[in-house]
């Protein structure tokens, strides 16, 4: 993993021009246009007096500047610096690593072809260990010190949510977050460019499957007690509400721990037919193994963030029948079906750049993120600015990255993909639910 850090030697950069930048002034308190309307002819005298009073007291209004700054920081003649803070170690280290390798395999491929408009992409990667505070510190360093052009491939809900204020303040684009949190989608920020489907969409697909296909009515929720878990819980509750149902039980664990017993007992007591699990692979695997040990075998459903390959690996044969919703198609080349071109390229590039890594859903997502980033950079042209980059993102409409699932960014909705794939663990592998 040190390899990735070495990719981005931060010492290369001077900070001489840092102090040129100043704190933006986002506040606005325009108070014009609030005067009452009156008959002007008759009450002219009064109006004059009133205007005089108004002028005397409400001196001047600070100018409002919501415009995206024509910022070209991070762009040099032959380089575009992109920053990323993700978990490369710790309990979510697998996600970050897979994601980064998927993305890097495509970026290296592009760089090898001469970059985009003569510039090579250099990714500065910092490890935050899935810790929001470290993510925050890293992001601050990336923006302030490294002066990257854009942020890329963030992993995790609490970490990404933590840096939203920085992104909005610095007006720096953030492309491709490995999280489906609603907080990143609403309220809409032009700088947060989501690519994957949201947790709301994932949990909704899961609930639809459970209630409609399986005919279950007793659905429990097991979630990580943080932004990520809450988001999944809300999504599940909203989906259940559509069927006039509520979760029969809710269990949770604290991020970074494996204390799943209490939650398991609550859910077991409710005799739930299905459990929607919003967590990472470690606690979720433990939860499923423990449940099966105790003879509690409902339908387990995990969302994409769980890291399906790692989950399947850890579960072993306990994983049989566990469902994981995905936002990308399976990254495996099934011999029977003609391969999706994007998946095929991912597998090819990954094999060439990271031969020891097996393709994964997370890696495919990282690859797709990199494709969208490069597509947008390519569309923005040689005279690259953040404003132009954002315009290029908005211009992506019905773009096919090769997965039979076209990417579209409206000017309002910064989310490229909407399709959810349900997969089930079968013999330690993930296959689409028929």
């Amino acid at each position, binding site marked *: 993993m040190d390899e990735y850090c070495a990719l981005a030697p931060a010492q290369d950069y001077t900070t001489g021009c*840092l*102090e*040129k*930048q*100043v*704190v*933006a*002034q*986002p*506040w606005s*308190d325009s*108070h014009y246009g*609030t*005067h*009452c309307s*009156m008959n002007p002819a008759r*009450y002219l005298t*009064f109006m004059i*007096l*009133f205007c005089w*009073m*108004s002028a005397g*007291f*409400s*001196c001047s*209004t*600070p100018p409002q500047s919501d415009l995206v700054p024509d910022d070209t920081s991070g762009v040099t003649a032959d380089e575009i610096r992109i920053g990323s803070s993700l978990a490369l170690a710790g309990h979510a280290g697998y996600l970050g690593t897979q994601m980064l390798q998927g993305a890097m395999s495509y970026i290296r491929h592009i760089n090898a072809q001469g970059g985009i408009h003569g510039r090579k992409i250099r990714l500065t990667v910092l490890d935050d260990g899935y*810790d*929001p*505070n*470290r993510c*925050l*510190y890293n992001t*601050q360093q990336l*923006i*302030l010190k490294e002066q990257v052009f854009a942020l890329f491939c963030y992993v995790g809900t609490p970490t990404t949510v933590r840096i939203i*204020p*920085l992104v909005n*303040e*610095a*007006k720096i684009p953030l492309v491709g977050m490995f999280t489906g949190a609603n907080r990143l989608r609403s309220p809409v920020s032009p700088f947060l460019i989501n690519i994957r489907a949201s947790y709301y969409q994932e949990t909704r697909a899961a609930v639809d499957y459970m209630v409609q296909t399986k005919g279950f009515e007793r659905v429990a929720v097991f979630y990580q007690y943080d932004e990520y878990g809450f988001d999944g819980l809300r999504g599940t509750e909203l989906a259940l509400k559509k069927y006039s149902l509520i979760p029969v039980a809710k269990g949770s664990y604290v991020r970074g721990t494996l204390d799943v017993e209490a939650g398991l007992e609550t859910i077991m007591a409710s005799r739930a037919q299905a459990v929607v699990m919003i967590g990472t692979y470690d606690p979720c695997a433990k939860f499923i193994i423990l449940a099966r040990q105790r003879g509690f075998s409902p339908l387990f459903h995990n969302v994409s963030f769980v890291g399906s390959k790692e989950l399947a690996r850890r579960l072993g044969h306990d994983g049989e029948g566990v469902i994981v919703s995905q936002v990308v198609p399976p990254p495996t080349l099934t011999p029977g079906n003609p391969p999706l071109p994007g998946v095929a390229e991912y597998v090819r590039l990954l094999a060439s750049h990271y031969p020891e890594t097996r393709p994964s859903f997370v890696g495919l997502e990282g690859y797709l993120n990199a494709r969208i980033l490069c597509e947008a950079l390519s569309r923005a042209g040689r005279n690259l600015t953040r404003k132009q980059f954002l315009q290029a993102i908005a211009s992506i409409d019905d773009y096919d990255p090769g997965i039979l699932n076209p990417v579209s960014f409206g000017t309002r909705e910064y989310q490229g993909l909407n399709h959810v794939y349900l997969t089930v663990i079968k013999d330690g592998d993930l296959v689409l639910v028929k």
Partner: protein
Amino acid sequence: MNFFNHLTLKNKIFFTCLGFVLLISVLIALFTRALLISSLTSGLKDRGLGIAQSIADSARVFILTENQVELTAIAYDARLGNRKDFVSYLVISDKDGQILGHTFTTGFFPGIRAAIQQRNPDTMSIDTLDQHGYSVFHISVPVKEGIYTIGAVHVGLDKKHIESLIAKLRLIFLSFLSVITIIFFFLSHRLALHITQPISSLIRYTDQITKGDFNILPDKGSARMLTTGASKKEDDIARLTDSFIKMTCQLKESTDRLKESQKKYRSLFRSGPNPIFVVEKTAFTILDANPNAIELFGYEHQELIGMKLFDLAKREQDHFAGDPGRDQAMIGSSKAAFYKKDGTCVFVNIHTSPSKYRDEDVIIVGTTDISELVEKDSQLIQASKMANIEKMSAGIAHEISQPLNAIKMGSEYLCMMQEKNRPVDKDDLHMVLTQISTQVTRAAEIVGRLKTFSRKTGFTSEIISINGCVHAVNKIIGRQIALQNISLALDLDTCLPMVLAHQNRIEQVIFNLLTNARDAVNEKIESMTEDQKGEIRIHTFSDHRNAVLEIADNGTGIAPDRMESIFESFYTTKEMGEGLGLGLPIIRGIVKDYNGTISVKSTPGKGTCFQIIFPAHPKGADNENNCYR
């Protein structure tokens, strides 16, 4: 102020209310500016200080371990939520001023490093940092472990945010004040209207009344309309309106009365039996005349207006002895001769009275046509004169026969001398012829006098001498009186002033009085056999610019009980058939016509004295002057 004075009452009230409200508003605004804003600023500073202190507490352990990740997280946490706008930046430094954690994302606040390093980390401070148009309150709070400082927390409070808060506060406050002002604007407008509406309607009605249109208040019912509502409240305006209505009613009544009396007088003026003129006071120009005047004088109305009154009388102004100072009516002139358009003479009595006519001082001249009366007078006077002459006819015949006898004697003498063919002495012839001529002249004179005397005269006046009249009468009957053995003594004042009268009439007066005196003397001589000589004395003299004529006799006199009756008509002491009893009344009438007076003094048995006084005519003064010279 001058502008204010020219405003209507409504606007005065309105602007005063509005000005007052505005003044209060401005004062409140100033108060707010002074007090609220400063307290708001200090409150916000306190809040910043509180944030810094709480951050200092939580940051202590991380400063010791120099954990930049946690310090950055703490720093960003301090700017969460709505604090983001208020807290411009937050910096955590160690005791040497090295920055450990901060919230700068896009770049450092200019000069912040220097500011942090220069500051004494041991004390708390609030300063103002102004750099490149950005202005913040920089609050520094030391972080201590035990008694030693290990670092500091610096909070930058955005001044613009504070200003915007203040601006918001001002806006809210101003909106509130504006609403209040607008409400007061309408309120004061309504108030001013409420107060001034009745006043303006009063003004409107007053204007109408001034134009003479009283129809706004035909009755009490509609008068109440003016005060609808107000009368119930009984405020000042209602009372004013009430008084106004009362006043208007009174005014209407009195105007109606005035119109009525005007109408009355107008009809009197129009239909009165006598000609009436309205004459200007000083120039006596005729301003108006009633139809009778037009009828009497034969002029058209348009012709009359603008003429002088004296043009009608063909006289001088001084004939009108009017006294304009007096208010009551008076007789200006009696038996004044006026002339119609065709030249016919009309005698009128004139009554004048000062008055006002179309804002001018005028004299109302009322005239009474007395032409008939004057004619009757003349006839009566003539009759009485004829009666006198009849009585005197024997004497007058004798008077005339005497010269005839003389002529006859002379002519017989001349005939006799011719028959005898005797030469007539030249001297005798001359004497006879002279005598004949003298006697003829004398007889002719008597006849002439008689003729003049008996002539019927009109009522006119001229400047005459009373002495002349006395001489004329004396010529007619002087000799007769002397024949009756009565001595007639004439004591005439040569300096007697001239008077305005008629010669013939005055002669008639003297003639009458003289015959009366002769009768009285003769009566005395007859009744008393005493051989006493009868005496009549005519005396004229001037007294205080009056001409006085006295005729005294030493006849029987008049008994005191009869004194009062002698001037009454048809009263006579003479035997039936001898007198009509009209002599003295006619005399008095004539004397009165010429503004004279007649009085009588009498002692029974001793004699009677009649005294007639005429006012001297100013033009006769010449005579007077000549006399004294």
